[in-house]
């Protein structure tokens, strides 16, 4: 019952995202055709032709109907900077983003939760003070600045632009090593920022549980300190962090706009940046629908998982 309700809610959210995606880019000021043809001499005839090509001359409700029916078919329209279907462009960039942001997020979540647990368990210790201090600093520092700093510090040791070099041998191993080499700096940047957030969240969540009576019960039973922590404290304290983790997984798809831009990583984040500088309305619209949809779906997954991990929440 509950699951059905949640799924219904998620479906409604997706619908809202689709509607919002359409109208948001219709109410922003500026004429798409003008920005499309910026810097080129145009005649009113070519402008009219472009309008007709993108369906911008139709009444609003007809535009919406076209947009919505094609959206259901998986067609997100055509990007006018790339002159290709938006869906195709997005799909092409999905791989690099998943590689960079996906791996970084998994590492960051694991590392962050672990650091947070240790810091809370030894609250007030030197370890706690250092972890919390460093986390707060990393969280506060602007991502692009951190990225640029890393580039400067490491010099030429790690590549700082793009995903692969043009002159690498075509065999799989060399290619993989090259990509991995390029991956180092942007993923360190991302891990540092995201991991700090998790360390802080997990730390405060576990601190809330530290005085729970069931931990005294566990100690009285004769459990070792680390067993008290692993078996009793963490399974309870991790519950509030679950939602946050999955929200972050949802954001993976939107890429890391600043990090990808700083390191010219050819992912969705950089695509977002390029679409904004256009501005490429159809591309932005498509990106919005895809990324917001990912967040909604991940949130639904978080709900389901929360029900599995916490017996007090009824899933069915």
């Amino acid at each position, binding site marked *: 019952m509950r699951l059905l309700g949640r799924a219904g809610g998620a479906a409604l959210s997706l619908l809202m995202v689709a509607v919002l995606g359409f109208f948001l880019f219709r109410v922003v000021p500026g004429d798409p055709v003008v920005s499309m043809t910026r810097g080129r001499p145009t005649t009113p005839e070519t402008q009219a032709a472009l309008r007709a090509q993108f369906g911008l001359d139709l009444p609003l409700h007809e535009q919406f109907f076209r947009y919505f029916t094609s959206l259901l078919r998986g067609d997100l329209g055509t990007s006018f900077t790339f002159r290709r279907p938006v869906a195709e462009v997005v799909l092409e960039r999905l791989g690099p983003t998943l590689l960079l942001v996906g791996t970084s997020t998994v590492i960051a979540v694991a590392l962050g939760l672990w650091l947070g647990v240790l810091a809370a368990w030894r609250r007030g210790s030197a370890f706690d003070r250092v972890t919390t201090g460093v986390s707060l600093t990393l969280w506060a520092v602007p991502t692009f600045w951190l990225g640029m700093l890393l580039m400067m510090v490491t010099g030429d040791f790690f590549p700082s632009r793009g995903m692969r070099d043009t002159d690498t041998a075509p065999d799989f191993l060399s290619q993989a090593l090259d990509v991995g080499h390029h991956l180092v700096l942007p993923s360190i940047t991302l891990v540092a920022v995201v991991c700090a957030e998790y360390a802080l969240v997990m730390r405060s969540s576990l601190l809330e549980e530290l005085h729970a*009576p069931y931990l005294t019960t566990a100690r009285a039973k*004769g459990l070792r300190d680390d067993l008290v922590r692993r078996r009793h404290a963490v399974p309870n304290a991790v519950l509030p962090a679950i939602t946050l983790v999955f929200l972050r997984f949802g954001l993976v798809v939107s890429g890391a706009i600043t990090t990808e831009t700083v390191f010219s990583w050819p992912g969705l984040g950089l695509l977002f940046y390029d679409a904004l500088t256009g501005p490429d309305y159809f591309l932005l619209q498509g990106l919005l629908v895809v990324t917001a949809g990912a967040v909604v779906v991940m949130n639904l997954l978080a709900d389901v998982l929360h029900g599995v991990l916490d*017996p007090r929440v009824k899933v069915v």
Partner: protein
Amino acid sequence: MLELRNLTVHYGQKRVVDDVDLALAPGRTLGLAGESGSGKSTVAMSVLRLLPRTARVDGQVLLDGEDVRTMSWGRLRAVRWASASVVFQGAMHALNPVRRVGEQIAEPMRLHGTPGSVAELLEQVELPRHKARAYPHELSGGQKQRVMIAMALACGPRLVIADEPTTALDVVVQAQVLALMTRLVAERDLALLMISHDLSVLAQTCEDLAVMQHGRLVERGRTREVVANPRHPHTAALTAAFPVIGDRRHRWAEPRPAPEPLLRVRDLVVDYGRTRAVDGVDLTVGHGEVVALVGQSGSGKTTLARTIMGLRRPSSGRVIFDGAEVPRGGRALKAFRRQVQLVLQDPSSALNPRHTVFEAVAEGLRVHGLREDEEALVTAAVERAELRPASLYLRSLPHELSGGQQQRVVIAGALVLRPRLLVADEPVASLDASVRGEVVALLLRLRRELGLASLLITHDLGLAWQIADRVAVMHQGNIVEQGPAEEVLLTPAHDYTRALLAAVPVLGPPATG
């Protein structure tokens, strides 16, 4: 078996346990009584060295002749649960909410390599085997307490420490749990150290009794003698604070002629989904009358009260207040709510921790748009609730006040709106015996001076005996018996009322000698 020598515990500069000497022989039962802050739980926790690191423990804690204070961590872990185990207050959060109770019972057995089965332990505490697969939230308070007991017995210890094992359970369940503990302690020849603020609970279970006050042991002896002839004034105060049903000296309500009805409930039915919580109830509260609604948890008494206050819609039936039907919504409902005010059980959670006394009391006035003379009205209400002079308390935050003072703030918040009916849900259940008497007296004085009627929801029959004019007994959504307090409590007509009365613990020698 267990011996405490000159046990002293400090938290920082504060001495919470002061030079306590206690001894418990194998197979004996000892009750440790005291109010909150007397240090009784600190004594209990020091036995297995479970106090937080900030505590400084001096003296000796000898368990089977070995000092717990100087044990290595490994030795201490081996002793914990195997030599002595603890029955915590299971109704609260002493069980891990995300693990099955069976796993939690089995955990110490695996740890200490004790043979045995969870199913057998559950049978011993009279729970069906399949409950091993349940999570704590799926069990009732009494069942959780049974799980705690099964867990404590898992490694066959010779000493069991029970820390407030029946607090927060209603009388009937409390009686069952106490009977179970008494039986198991006798069968297994266990030594029992039981901690409670409730002298009557200890009197029923323990052969010996020790009383603590301000960290010191003020009296100890055979339970029978201590209860009958208390030598220390604090013990005397504790024994006197417990109302004995049938004792005229403990009946504070004066007899008065039957008043005109203020609130009338007629054939009220309230459903929660498919569950019928209140099933055709008739109830009357007169002007200035104190009516006690007694019953076990789950009997529907709180639902009935919420419906009377207009917080829930009845499925059918009528609630008539001062001759008019209680409005279902809008301005009229708001006006009605002003006349009926609620006092909850736990003042520390009923008060917003960041609101001063003044803000807490003034909130009702603000909600009802009575902004004139706010200061004067609040001061008057606070003084009515006997926080005098009010200026001393108005700027205080809840955590700076004692439990009794907090409850007075809650009462002041109700009084400031000049209500005509007070609905009080277990108003003294979380208070210490000495404070409890004062709050009870306050409720009576308000009735006398303001003509304030009260509907008292409680499972505490002693409280009903102290102040109620009339008593209504609720069982499974029905009122099975109602009438003048003396009639219902002294000559009960219904079997259920008799069962409730039989479950009330009395000060006296333990049932099993």
